[in-house]
Each structure stands twice: as structure tokens, then as C-alpha cells.
């Protein structure tokens, strides 16, 4: 199958240093030349050269982090999905994390415009010793009619397998004809953000500290909780992207200062 955009990345460890050992891209996907963060983490930016996602587009991203390697990946800009009159946009991502690896994925928000239909399926296969950071957020695009939710349907599925066993299954679907504003749904908000961090040192006590830390400066509508494996899920509802980004940045900083003992990744945007 030919994709609108296809990307394959592989990171390996060579003489104590993580390097991008292989990269393939085709269609509208490109990557920046890898840079190194202050912590010697290779950082790659994903670039979509087509400007936005349109009717019937298909995307596949595959990232393989080999033994001991670390990799940080971000998007260059937000993902914009436009109208899909005939066929929805499908985006798949497959991440494979071998033993003692780190993958940090920071995605810019998905902006869904009028009549957009988009499905994203992310599958992660990781070793128990690996760690994984992931953000995902959905923003309704501007529409000239002033509709709060101009899109038709946005679906995002995340499945994480640890040592072959399904441990996280997150399934979000935003369908404006199902009264998204009501209680239990978006509760008067328009934006949703999710953050996952899986690491062997995440405990109930660590999450309590994170909760106290976030509560000290933020009273937005969010929740954090321990997953079935050592790891945390944060979910936030907001009326603006900047609030979600602020919380994500705070969690990232907390993670890096308490667990990695280093400053947060500077994503260089």
C-alpha cells in the first residue's frame, strides 16, 4: 500500500551514545536533521510538507528504539485536518521499544476543521524496562459559522502492550452530534488533552506528589492516576490549547526533575 505519508525511524545505541541509525520517509512526510539535546538525546522533528490532511489521506509512522537507545520525537507544527467528503483520514503509528530504551513523543495538537473525519491508531510494543512519554490533544478548528465543533468525528486509539500483554487501551471519540458539551463528556470545554508516561519509578506516592505540585498553580479540569503498570495518565479538558500545553510542560518538568534528574527536553521550536 502506498501512503500519503510514510515514515520509519530507528534509534540505536553506539558506544554509549544514542543515534538515529536509520530513517526512511516517503510522500508528504519528512524529518528534520536530528539535533542533540543538552542531555545527548537525539531529537527529530516530523514535518508534513503538504500543509494539512485532506480527504482519504493515509499515514504510517514506525519508530523502532533498539536496546539501550533513547529518542525524542516531536512534530514541527500542529496537524490540521480539513474536510473529508468521501473518505476519512487514517493515521497509524507503531512504536517498538526494546529493553532499557526511552521514547519521548511530543505531538502538537490536532486541529480539526469543518467536516473533518479523522482516525488515529497508535500501537506501542514495549519491554517492561523501557520508558515512554506521549502527548496527544485535540482542538476544534476555526469555522466561519462560529460552530464550536465544526468537525464530524475524531477518533484516537492508543494501545500499549508491555511484554506482549495489552496494558493500556485508551479510546477517545469526539462526535459533535452526541452532545459533547454535556456532563461526563467535555463538560463545557472544547479541547481535550492526554498525557501518558510509563516508567518503572512511577508509584502512587509519586503521583500524589505530582498532584500536589499541579494543584499548587493550576485549578483547571484535569485528573491524574496510576495505570495498571508503573505509569501515569493525565487527562485535561480546557477551552484553550495554551492551558493544555501549560499543564503538559509542567508535568514534563516534574518528570525530568524527579525521575531523570535532568532538565526537561527543550523541544527547540
Amino acid at each position, binding site marked *: 500500500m502506498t501512503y500519503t505519508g510514510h515514515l520509519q525511524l530507528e534509534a540505536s545505541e553506539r558506544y554509549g551514545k544514542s543515534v538515529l541509525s536509520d530513517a526512511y520517509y516517503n510522500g508528504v512526510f519528512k524529518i528534520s536533521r536530528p539535533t542533540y539535546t543538552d542531555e545527548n538525546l537525539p531529537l527529530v522533528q516530523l514535518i508534513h510538507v503538504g500543509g494539512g490532511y485532506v480527504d482519504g489521506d493515509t499515514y504510517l509512522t514506525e519508530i523502532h528504539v533498539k536496546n539501550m537507545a533513547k529518542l525524542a520525537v516531536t512534530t514541527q507544527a500542529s496537524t490540521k485536518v480539513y474536510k473529508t467528503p468521501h473518505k476519512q483520514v487514517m493515521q497509524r503509528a507503531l512504536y517498538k521499544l526494546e529493553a532499557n530504551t526511552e521514547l519521548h513523543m511530543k505531538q502538537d495538537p490536532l486541529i480539526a476543521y469543518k467536516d473533518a473525519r479523522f482516525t488515529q491508531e497508535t500501537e506501542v510494543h514495549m519491554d517492561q524496562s523501557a520508558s515512554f512519554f506521549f502527548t496527544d490533544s485535540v482542538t476544534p478548528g476555526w469555522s466561519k459559522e462560529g460552530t464550536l465543533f465544526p468537525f464530524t468525528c475524531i477518533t484516537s486509539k492508543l494501545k500499549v502492550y508491555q511484554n506482549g500483554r495489552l496494558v493500556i*487501551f485508551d*479510546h*477517545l471519540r469526539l462526535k459533535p452530534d452526541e452532545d459533547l458539551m454535556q*456532563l*461526563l463528556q467535555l463538560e463545557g470545554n472544547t479541547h481535550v488533552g492526554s498525557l501518558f508516561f510509563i516508567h518503572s519509578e512511577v508509584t502512587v506516592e509519586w503521583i500524589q506528589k505530582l498532584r500536589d505540585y499541579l494543584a499548587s498553580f493550576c485549578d483547571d*479540569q484535569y*485528573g491524574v*492516576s496510576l495505570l495498571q503498570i508503573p505509569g501515569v495518565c493525565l487527562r485535561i*479538558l480546557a477551552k484553550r490549547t495554551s492551558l493544555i500545553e501549560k499543564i503538559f510542560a509542567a508535568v514534563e518538568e516534574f518528570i525530568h526533575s524527579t525521575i531523570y534528574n535532568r532538565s526537561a527536553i527543550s523541544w527547540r521550536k
Partner: protein
Amino acid sequence: MAMTNALFPILQLSDSQFPSGAFSHSFGLETYISNGTINSSASFRKVLEIFLANQFVYTDGLACRLAYEGLEIGNLEQLWQLDQSLYALGMARETREGNRRIGDRFVKIVSTLYPNQVFDQYNMELKNKNVFGHSALVFAIVSKHLGIERETAISSYGFATASSLVQNAVRGVPLGQTEGQKILVDIQPLLTDIVNRIMLLDETEFGIGAPGLEIAQMQHEAIDVRLFMS
């Protein structure tokens, strides 16, 4: 097991007094009581309706249907996968653990009351820590075993879910006993509608979450004074 009247076991399992432990869990609804969103019979009923139309439709109810269909073709592997998926869907620790405890207890009690080979297998999978236990599967297994139809199984499970949440609201909001029972009458058309919707869902729709509810379930961990474990 010869069953001349399948109504009795269904009534038994749907009884909010059934000792599954569901009376100790609000599944996040106590957060709404605590912050004043639920403060009356009307406001509780609204939340219950949305809970049933979302959490029950896409997750618990659909899981019950899919488990029943797995049993119809003798595919037990499908049941264990559903059990694992249900556990993996739980983003809030208390709710996930609550479902597991209730599910585990429900399997143990019901498998003693209505023993059959599928329950033997379920107990074995539980013992091997391959699965966690979930009430959706118990309703499917016992119903299939007793020759109760799929729709009836899902309807009973939906009514049991509603009834247990109403009993908890009577204690937690609090509401009058009669008010609580009145809600169980008023939501009957909705329950019928919900079962019809579940029958038409596609398998790919399994597990669609309600973000606000999930946040309420997570926030419950930080509530100071609480009546419920989730």
C-alpha cells in the same frame, strides 16, 4: 443444569443487594456529589442517564454482548481478551481496581451458584493472573448457560448497573428511597433504547470513553471525605 424459569437467576443477579461489593463504589459519581453537580434527584438522574448512554453502552454493555457472542461460537479466548481490554481501559486507579474487585467476587460467587465449565475456565484464568474479573462477562456467561437471550442478558446487566448506582445515590446524595425507585421507573425507556443501540454497535466502537467522567474518577482519589472507594 435444567432451568425451568430463567427469570429467577436474572432477578437474583440484578438485585442491588447481591454481595458483589458494588455498594462501595460510585465509579466517579461521588466527585460530582462532592462538588455539588449532583445535589438532587433530577441532577442525579441526568448524570445516571449520561453514564448509561456512554460508559455502559460502549464499554460494559458492549463487552457483555461481545462475550455472549464469543460463547455462542465457543471462543473463550475472546472472553479473556475482553477481560484484559476492560482492565486496560481503566485510566483511573480506583475505578479500575473497583471493577476488578467486584468482577473477581462476582465470578467466584456466581460460579458457585451456577457452576459450569466456562466459569471453571474463568476461575482458572483468574488464578493464573491472566485475567482480572469483570461483571460484564459474568452476566454473559450465566445467561448463555441458562438459555437466556442476549438482549435479556444485556438488559438485566444494564438494570443491575442502574439499580446499584441508584442505591448508592440514595445513600450518597442523599435521595429518598421512593425518589430512587422513581428514577428506576423513569429510565426504563432509556434502558430499552440503550440495549437496542448496543446490539447495533460495531466492535471497533468498544471502549469509547467519557473524558469528563474519567477525570472525575481520577479526582475522586483526592477527595477528603468519602463514602465510596471509587
